């Protein structure tokens, strides 16, 4: 049996329950191995169904769904344009997708018998890797190959800059890899820690009523659900914000400064 046992306490979800009920069988092995992929698929399906359902019935006077979606997209656009400038709107779909997926995943993890895919490093690390690849792609396309290498050497402008360039190059390359790793570890750590917290308090609640021989426990984990909700929103926001900042750091300096100044005069 290829059951994955985690080293930390966790709340059972329907896939684990189903896998344990059908074990040992190839089906239970499949469920254990593809748990996070199944949850990711469900989340993607939920987002897609909602987006398609709302965008099919777009009206001049928006309904509840359309108004919510417009508010969300406008907020995400604000985050991106406030960091990069009006040209940063090109990156709103990418950053917005990150935010919506992480946010919905985190909310989904609070539904009983469901799980957040952000509690799996195998889901979070590829998302951060996508950010890394996208940022590098922007660096190469916006700066050109030579400009990108110049950026990796610390953008030297004088003889001293060129002398320290061989030392700056590994530092810059390391820095580029530090970003996605820090992004993924922070998100994974926060969400996983939240799950562990809920599981521990659920277990304590059950233990408290054990002498009474009742099949329920005290809901002492309840306040932490709100904490988890808050953490879920904050983490989705921080992940998107940092991704936007990393994109801004890779853009050509002149373009960014010009844009940022324009934003400053507009909103000032």
């Amino acid at each position, binding site marked *: 049996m290829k059951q994955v046992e985690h080293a930390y306490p966790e709340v059972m979800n329907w896939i684990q329950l189903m896998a344990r009920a059908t074990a040992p069988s190839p089906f239970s092995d499949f469920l254990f191995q593809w748990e996070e992929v199944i949850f990711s698929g469900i989340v993607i399906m939920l987002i897609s169904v909602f987006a398609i359902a709302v965008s099919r019935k777009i009206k001049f006077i928006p309904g509840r769904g359309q108004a919510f979606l417009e508010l969300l997209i406008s907020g995400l656009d604000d985050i991106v344009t406030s960091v990069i400038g009006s040209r940063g709107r090109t990156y709103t779909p990418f950053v917005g997708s990150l935010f919506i997926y992480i946010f919905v995943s985190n909310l989904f993890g609070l539904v009983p018998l469901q799980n957040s895919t952000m509690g799996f490093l195998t889901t979070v690390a590829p998302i951060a890797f996508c950010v890394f690849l996208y940022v590098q792609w922007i660096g190469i396309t916006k700066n050109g190959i030579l400009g990108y290498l110049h950026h990796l050497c610390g953008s030297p402008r004088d003889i001293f800059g060129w002398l320290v360039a061989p030392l700056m190059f590994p530092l810059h390359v390391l820095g580029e890899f530090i970003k996605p790793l820090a992004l993924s*570890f922070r998100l994974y750590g926060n969400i996983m820690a939240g799950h562990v917290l809920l599981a521990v308090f659920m277990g304590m609640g059950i233990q408290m009523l054990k002498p009474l021989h009742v099949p329920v426990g005290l809901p002492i984990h309840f306040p932490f659900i709100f904490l988890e909700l808050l953490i879920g929103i904050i983490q989705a926001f921080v992940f998107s914000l940092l991704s936007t900042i990393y994109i801004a750091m890779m853009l050509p300096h002149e373009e960014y400064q010009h844009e940022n100044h324009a934003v400053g005069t507009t909103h000032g």
Partner: protein
Amino acid sequence: MGDTSGKKGVVFSQVKQIGALTAIPAVLLVGPILGYFVGNWIDRKFQLYPWFTVFFVFAGFFAAGREIFRLLKQVLKEDEAKK
């Protein structure tokens, strides 16, 4: 696009700063760890232990510090531009 000026803009800016500040511990932690793995891999490849491990641990630490500096500079620059 919504309005990011006034009181709402100040709150938004503060939330953004807090968001950027929360990245500091993770970046500081990941830098030397990544440096250790890179240096250790090179040392095992060329049998030069511990030179590259030590070098890359320090390089990772400096790279992490530099990333934090750039991150904060970026966030503060945005606020300066808005003033």
